[in-house]
Every structure is written in structure tokens, then in C-alpha cells.
């Protein structure tokens, strides 16, 4: 019996109708673009350009430092005006390369890439690394490391995460509709690395058009299939996705590869296609710019490094007074400290909310709703109590380190407790102490 979903989870309002019919549009950024040198998990990239130097679109700005790191490329042509710490969406300052856009969009000449079919797996991985590809669904794990697992034969599934379970977000959906062939070709490239694997497009059942499109495009592929999943949050979380597609449960200390799976976001797969077939590095990404505060929400192709403050204008400006700006969706997104921060490779959306739902947290009435929805089967109310009292050993005993941080518990809590933030704060604290 095929699992079409996992147990638990929540059903927030989808709010996808704002943008689901809006085709991806190219966005022209303003004068200044900022490229933080760490948009990925791993070492900070090392700048290879000097202040005052002119760079072209697609030119390397910073080289990866070590194996677990990623290159950063310019997304416009212009002049390097500074290399200095700049504020980022996470609220922290990171060393960044700052470009002044000259508006010419002069591209770095690309040599005609050799057909990927003729490449050895090692060369494919090298091209992916050179293109600076990281997990673009938000995690930012360098893709060449993920695909470079030691024993490629044990990988049985390459799962393309097209669930897009976050409310409001539709950029993955548009990619699947508009770049169907490219995605199928991208999956062919990845499957060439894993000879025993099946490629699975995992898509939630509210994206009928995307399912049909992918089914048509991949119908003749013997090594690909489309898996239709229930529309539920957090269906796109790696561990939930693996369970829904294969029935295997992995815990927080394991990697998808331990269950024989590789998971790639739709946007990441598209980047792989561009790198291997067009020879282009990651310089832009699809982004849903939406929210009730905007007049004309849109899906945009945004150059990496664009400042968030430029995006609302492209989406018709504000129709209502914006109360809250989020990078990402309403479930897992983070509130932006200021709009003068850049879009990163891992930015999945920009949400301008017209209402700021702030309710005073009440006391737990032990209704058990959080327990019911926790996809990891934790007891969020107890974990939050433990976290708030800073009882670290107990927190670990109760499997607090397993928390996904999906926020389902906080979503359903009738007392509006800050369950997920409490647990995640504690979890991060323990992680930085290095005691897992």
C-alpha cells in the first residue's frame, strides 16, 4: 500500500489563488545588489573580486572555501562597490559583496557545454559545484555534497520535492508548469549519478495542472514516476516526504541517504538543468511575492542579491498597509528585520501580511491538539514547558532534539502558546553547544 501522506500535520488556509495563475516574470533589480558570502550550510565563501572591479552577469564573486561550501556568482553586470558585513534576512550581519548594477546585464560568455550524457559522474558533480548550487528549498545544503554520497548504489529514490506545502507559495508550482521539460531533463541528469534509483516527482494533490504536466512529460521515462500526495502541512519536510513516498521513517540524526533517498527541491533541480545544459551558474531564482498587503501579487524570477524593498513595487505596490514582512511562507517563514536585506539562493518567497496576528499566549488547557498534529509524535506542550524552564537533560530525554520546527503545534494551540519557538530556541541552543 502506498503511503500518500504522514500522520499528524495541519491544514492551514492555502491562499495560493493570489498567485497560482501568475506566470513567472523576470524582475529587473535596482542599483544595489548584495551577495552575502554564506547563503548555504558550510564555510563562508572567499571573495575573488576587488572593490572597484567591473564584473559581468554570471561571473564568479566568491570561491567556495573547502568542500562543504558554495560559490557565489554575480547576477547582474556592474561594479563591486564594497566587501563588508551587511544585514541579512536572518537578522545577522554577514560579510557580503556589494555590486552597483550598471543596468547593461552584460553576460559572462559561456562556452558551449558538452552534452551531460558524455560526462563522468565526477564531472557532473564538479559542474554542479562550480555553478554554486545549494538546496534552494530553504535548507541551503550544497547540492554537490548531497549528490556526492559515498555509495551511490544504495540510493533507490531521487525525490523531487514539488509539494510546496507552505501556504501562499506558488513558485515551485509555476516552475513545474512552465519548465516541465527542463525539470524532467534535470532529473535525468541526477538519475545518471544513481544507477539503481527511481526518480519520483512528489506533488500535493492541490496542484492538478502540475501533476498532469509532469505526467505527460515524464510518461515515457521508465525510471520516473509521479507520486500524488495529500495536501497537508508539513508534507514537504524531508522526513515526512520520505515516509510518504517510501514508507521509511528516519530520525533527526539520519540523512535521507540513510533511507536510500535523495531529496531535491524543484528550484534546485531547475538550477542543475541550467548548470549542465546551459552552463549557467545560480544567479536568480523563482520567488512568490505575495500577501494581502500587495495590490498585484506575482511570481518573479529574481536575481540573487536583489533587496527585498524593491519587490513590492513590481507586485503593484501596497494596497493595504503592510504590517509584517516575511521571508518565506507564513508557517516557517522568518520576519524580516528590515527590507534592506537581499534575496538569497534559499529565499522561497516574500510575504507582505496586512494583519499581524499577535495574540497574548494563554495557559495550556491540556487539550492535546499539539500532540495530535505533531508529525514527529512529540509532546510539544511538555517540551515547551521543559524548554521554558531550561531543563536540558529532560529536553533531550523527551526527544526535543527531534523537533522539525514545522510549527504545527503552535498553529493549532487554542491557548496560542509559543510552542514551536520555545522548543526550537532550546534546540538551537543545545545544537550550538554541540551536545546532540
Amino acid at each position, binding site marked *: 500500500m502506498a503511503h500518500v501522506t504522514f500522520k499528524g500535520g495541519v491544514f*492551514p488556509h492555502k491562499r495560493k489563488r493570489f498567485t497560482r495563475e501568475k506566470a513567472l516574470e523576470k524582475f529587473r533589480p535596482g542599483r544595489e545588489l548584495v551577495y552575502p558570502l554564506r547563503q548555504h550550510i558550510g564555510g563562508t565563501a572567499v571573495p575573488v573580486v576587488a572593490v572597484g572591479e567591473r564584473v559581468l552577469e554570471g561571473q564568479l564573486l566568491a570561491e567556495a572555501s573547502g568542500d562543504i561550501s558554495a560559490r557565489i556568482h554575480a547576477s547582474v553586470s556592474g561594479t563591486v562597490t564594497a566587501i563588508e558585513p551587511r544585514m541579512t534576512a536572518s537578522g545577522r550581519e554577514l560579510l557580503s559583496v556589494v555590486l552597483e548594477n550598471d543596468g547593461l546585464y552584460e553576460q559572462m560568455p559561456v562556452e558551449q557545454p558538452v552534452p551531460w550524457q558524455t560526462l563522468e559522474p565526477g564531472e557532473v558533480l564538479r559542474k554542479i559545484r562550480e555553478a554554486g548550487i545549494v538546496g534552494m528549498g530553504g535548507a541551503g545544503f550544497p547540492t554537490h555534497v548531497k549528490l556526492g554520497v559515498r555509495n551511490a548504489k544504495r540510493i533507490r529514490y531521487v525525490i523531487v520535492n514539488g509539494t510546496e506545502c507552505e501556504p501562499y507559495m506558488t513558485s515551485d508550482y509555476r516552475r513545474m508548469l512552465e519548465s516541465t521539460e527542463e525539470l524532467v531533463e534535470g532529473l535525468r541528469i541526477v538519475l545518471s549519478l544513481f544507477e539503481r534509483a527511481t526518480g519520483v516527482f512528489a506533488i500535493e494533490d492541490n496542484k492538478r495542472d502540475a501533476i498532469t504536466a509532469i505526467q505527460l512529460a515524464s510518461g515515457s521515462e521508465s525510471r520516473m514516476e509521479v507520486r500524488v500526495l495529500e495536501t497537508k502541512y508539513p508534507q514537504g519536510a524531508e522526513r515526512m516526504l520520505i515516509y510518504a513516498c517510501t514508507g521509511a521513517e528516519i*530520525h533527526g540524526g539520519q540523512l535521507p541517504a540513510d533511507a536510500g533517498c535523495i531529496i531535491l527541491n524543484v528550484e534546485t533541480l531547475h538550477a542543475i538543468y541550467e548548470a549542465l545544459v546551459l552552463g549557467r551558474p545560480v544567479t536568480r531564482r523563482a520567488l512568490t511575492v505575495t500577501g494581502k498587503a500587495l495590490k498585484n501579487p506575482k511570481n518573479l524570477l529574481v536575481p540573487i542579491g536583489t533587496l527585498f524593498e524593491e519587490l513590492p513595487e513590481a507586485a503593484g505596490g501596497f494596497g493595504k498597509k503592510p504590517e509584517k514582512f516575511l521571508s518565506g511562507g507564513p508557517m516557517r*517563514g522568518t520576519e524580516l528585520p528590515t527590507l534592506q536585506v537581499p534575496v538569497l539562493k534559499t529565499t522561497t518567497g516574500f510575504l507582505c501580511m496586512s494583519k499581524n496576528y499577535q495574540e497574548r499566549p494563554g495557559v495550556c488547557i491540556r*487539550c*492535546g491538539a499539539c500532540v*495530535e498534529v505533531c508529525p514527529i509524535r512529540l509532546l510539544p506542550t511538555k517540551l515547551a514547558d521543559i524548554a521554558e524552564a531550561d531543563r536540558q537533560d529532560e529536553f533531550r530525554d523527551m526527544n526535543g532534539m527531534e523537533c522539525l520546527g514545522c510549527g504545527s503545534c503552535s498553529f493549532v494551540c487554542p491557548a496560542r502558546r509559543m510552542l514551536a519557538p520555545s522548543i526550537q530556541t532550546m534546540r538551537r541552543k543545545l545544537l550550538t553547544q554541540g551536545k546532540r
Partner: protein
Amino acid sequence: MEEKKYRWMFPHVKGTMTTAGMMRMVLLALLPAAVFGTFHFGFRALLHMVVCLVTCVLTEFTFEAFADRPLAVTDGSAAVTGMLLALLLPVGAPLWMGFLGGVFAIAVIKMPIGGLGKNRLNPALSACAVLMLAFPGYMKDYSFGTYGAKTLLGQLLQGQTVDPFSMLWGGTNGSIGAASALMLLVGALILLGAGVIRLRIPAAVTAAFTLTLFLFSGRGVDQLFFTTQILGGGFFLVTFFMATDTVTSPITSGGQILYGVLIGILAGIFRLCKVEEGVIYAVLIANLVVPFLEEFTVPKAFGYRKMVRVSQKRR
């Protein structure tokens, strides 16, 4: 920017259920039984409700005002307690009984331990049990109109044969809220439909209760006997509205089932011992072992339950 307690404030959208909303739903679900009780037993039933409600709400308000606690009486939980207490009283009881019970429920059971969410025992049930033990003469006298002091269930427990049909729609005596099983079922459906309660606990209670009676009553499949047992003694009122009280029931799903089974068995035993209101005591006893039940039913976290296996291609 101001310092925030958490760096991650998420999610930024919330579900529709709130504590106050849940309490309002419970009050709404109790309305059919309350309205029926008023029509059936007369104006005095309404008086009981007013006394209990006002007492509970005012007691909580006073407590919060004097103990300098944040004012939480607006969440409606005190009103629910008051309403439930009134529905548990026999209509002939003196009005000060509701006052006494209300003060006890809030000022002794609920607030000293920390208020909503902290009490181990269900306030309305505790108050009712204490009143029954202290004033059995008043609390077990269900006489009203032409009906005698004994309910049909009471007569059954005395060994008489009764026709339980009138208990279903409510043409009989009993406590104010429990006269009509039908009205309580309507309320239960409202709660289930709105997602305020889950079927787990009531189902487990009913199953275990019936099974206990079946095994040990020696009545075999005596339909009249079972119907009377289930319709009488406030069984529905207690099972659907008090055993499901979120505060005093376990948070784990396994714990909820065990809790229901325990209540069912205890209630069955009490009934076999001819204690008419046994289900009330059963819930209170089960309330006390909730922490124990929870500890033993913590589910295994995702990924720890079964060995990781890579399944073959599924079709």
C-alpha cells in the same frame, strides 16, 4: 529594534480554535440539555443554572482580583463549570447547594492549584461528589411533580424492572441536565462536529462500561438492563462533557484510551455495587491517575519506532 524573547516567531498564521472558543462551544453544546431541563423541570431549573453560573464566575473573578492573577475569567471556563454543576443537581435541591458547590469547585479545586489547566480534578464533578457525600438527603432526592425520589436507574438497581424508553427523550426524573439522553447526544454531536472533543474517550468509556456490566452483571444480553444503565445516572452527561474535559484527561492518544477504559470499568463496578452516580466517582478516580497514564503512553518519536527499511518500488 526591540529585544524579542524568541528569534523565531512562527508560524505567522494560527488555527481557528481558541480556548475561549472551545468554552463557548461547550456552553452551546450544553444548551439543548439546559433548555430541555428548564421546560421539563420548570423555572426552578433555570434558577439553579443562574445561581451556579454566577457563583462560579464571581468566585473566579474574586480569586483573580485578590490573588493578583491575570484576569482569565473571560475565557469562559468558569461558566462551563457552573453550567455543568447546575446540570448535575436534582431540581429539588435547595438553591444554596449550587452556591456551595460553585464556591467549592472554583475556590477549592480549581484556583488554589493555579487555575485553568492546572487542576487535577474536574471542578464541577468534584463539587457534585462532595455535595452528594455531604448532603445525600438532598442530592439523591430526585422527586419532582408526580415522580418519586428514585430515578428509573435507581429502581433498576433496587432490583425492579423498568422501561427505559422515557429516559431517552426525557419524560422522567433525574438531575437537571441528565433527564434527556437525546439532548445530551445532540450536544455531544455538536462538540464532535466542531472538533472540541474527540470520540476516543467517550467510545472507550462506553465500550468498557458495557463490557464490564456484560461480564459481571449476570444479565447476559438484557437490552432493557443495558439501556437503563447507559441512559441513567448522568452517564452521557459525564462521559461526553466531563470525561472529555481536556484539563483533567491525558494528552496522549494512548493515555486517552486507557483513561476511558479505566472510567468505564470503574463506573461498571460502581453500578454493580448499586452506586447510581458511580460514573462521577469513576471519572474523579481516573483524574488522579492521569499523570501515570500519560507517562506510560508517550509515543515513540518518528524514526525510532521501526527499523529503517528501503522498500521496493511500490505501485
